[in-house]
């Protein structure tokens, strides 16, 4: 326990001294996770909303596929994107492997189904009466859709927050596609996993503190969004 306490104390010192290496890793992590989340949300929220409010043949099947994609393991995605981006791969000529763009590609594949599936679930939970009420009060199709979207807002925000929390904490994709290159693609999770027994233990603990703080903050935001949501209904 002494060892752990000592490491924590040193890590706190490192955090306080604004160590540039530490904060650059945090910056890369947040940037990559944010970009992934934004891309996945820009595609996934409209997709999920469309699936939820439209009636079409095979809707049940689409939702089942979406829910199944939630289970894609990060390492499987990492391997698949690696095969595409490696020199021998179909997109190898782009030279994206071991760049932040590669990580973003993999993470978008990871969380797009999350954002879409949770948007479907948030919008589907909205009582049919909201649609009916908007329509009977004279709303057109777009206005009706907007009214439903507005009622589902906390659920959708929750989906986006959950997605961000998922990518900031994942390691498989960041490691396989980013390669943990110092000052370029080294993220909090890859640094923590790969550097801890190479004398960079204090750095790992400092990153762990920040990652834990970010993850818990996201989770608390998520609980607030869901709580607010629940209270509204």
């Amino acid at each position, binding site marked *: 326990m002494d060892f752990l306490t000592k490491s924590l104390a040193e890590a706190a010192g490192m955090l306080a001294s604004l160590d540039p290496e530490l904060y650059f890793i945090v910056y890369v992590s947040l940037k990559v996770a944010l970009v992934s989340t934004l891309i996945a949300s820009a595609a996934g929220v409209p997709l999920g909303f469309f699936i939820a409010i439209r009636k079409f043949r095979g809707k049940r099947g689409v939702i089942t596929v979406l829910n199944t994609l939630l289970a894609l393991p990060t390492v499987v995605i990492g391997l698949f994107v690696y095969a595409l981006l490696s020199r021998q791969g179909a997109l190898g000529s782009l030279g994206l492997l071991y760049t932040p763009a590669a990580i973003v590609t993999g993470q978008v594949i990871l969380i797009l189904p999350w954002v879409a599936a949770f948007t479907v679930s948030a919008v589907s939970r909205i009582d049919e009466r909201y649609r009916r*009420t908007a329509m009977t009060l004279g709303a057109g199709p777009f206005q009706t859709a907007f009214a439903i979207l507005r009622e589902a807002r906390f659920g959708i925000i929750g989906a986006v927050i959950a997605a961000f929390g998922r990518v900031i904490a994942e390691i498989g994709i960041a490691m396989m596609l980013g390669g943990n290159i110092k000052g370029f693609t080294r993220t909090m999770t890859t640094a923590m996993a790969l550097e801890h027994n190479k004398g960079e233990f204090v750095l790992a603990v400092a990153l762990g503190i920040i990652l834990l703080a970010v993850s818990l903050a996201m989770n608390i935001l998520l609980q607030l969004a869901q709580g607010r949501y629940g209270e509204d209904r």
Partner: protein
Amino acid sequence: MTLYDLTLVQVQFGALRALDIDRLSLPENSACALLGPNGSGKTTLLHVLALLRPPTRGAVSFMGEPVSWREKTLLPLRRKVVLVDQHPIMFSTTVIKNVSYGPKMRGESRSFQKRIALECLDRVGMKEYADRPAHRLSGGETQRVAIARALACGPRVLLLDEPTAGVDIENQSVVEKIIFDLCSEKNMSILFSTHNPIQAERLARSKIYLSAGRLAAPAAENRFPARVLQQNGLLALIDNREIHTGPPPEIFSTGSFVSIDPEKIRVYANARGNSGPRNGWLAAKVLQISAETDRIRVVLDAGKAGGTLLTALLKAGDVRQNRIVPGDSVQITLDPDALRIEKPPA
């Protein structure tokens, strides 16, 4: 001009035919109550009339125009009619934003939205709630705001689905009073569903009865699951009691229904000393007598043991002359054409 014309309208939910109306005309500027038991199709009919649900089959015409049910042509028609749900939901914002939603959708100016919303809130006595979060109101308050929200659309037709169901007792009389006032409104027709015949009688000028999705005689209660037997050529068996009928009925197994026309039931006070049941007569007990538009509605217990509720529609004079009072034992007869036998569904 007629407001609605429905011809051969059916609404099917899977195997269930929720609505099956051969013909229904509603005149303009009417105040009409829609009666019928739970599951009789009241809400489904209101959704069709609100132009929210296209019928599975049949033609609807609204204010002289046939309704095509294509979204494009539907919107202008739908903006003339507003439905207030049985348990209305509020958008999760303030009361006044809820009430100004209709004018906003119609592209009215902000100042007009606000003025009309406050006006309508005032009409239902909820003006001081304008800035409250709308989804935190009680059931009765929600109902009042929902009516204001509907009125703010300036509709030609207002449809209300069981407006006093789920409303606390203090608000019930308030809501009834609002509906009563709206019923005397010019330039607006009002149609509300209710399971309360007294409410219908007090508030509406006309009534529609639904039973199992069909328009029914004004006492749809007289519908019994029955085994009908051809016995002595003249008898029908209802709930194991024999009821006389003229023409020999067809024979059906279980699953058929018998309806008794409430206008074709005669009720006689027990003659003095003549207490035993005579041939062709049924003994019954009077439970309730109430006013119907131009008739008196008499609810009778005609069963042996907590048995069969029958509703008869009599003339006021007959009731008065016979001195019928609830609690009395009476005798009833059915006119030869009082029974209608429904075949079981194929």
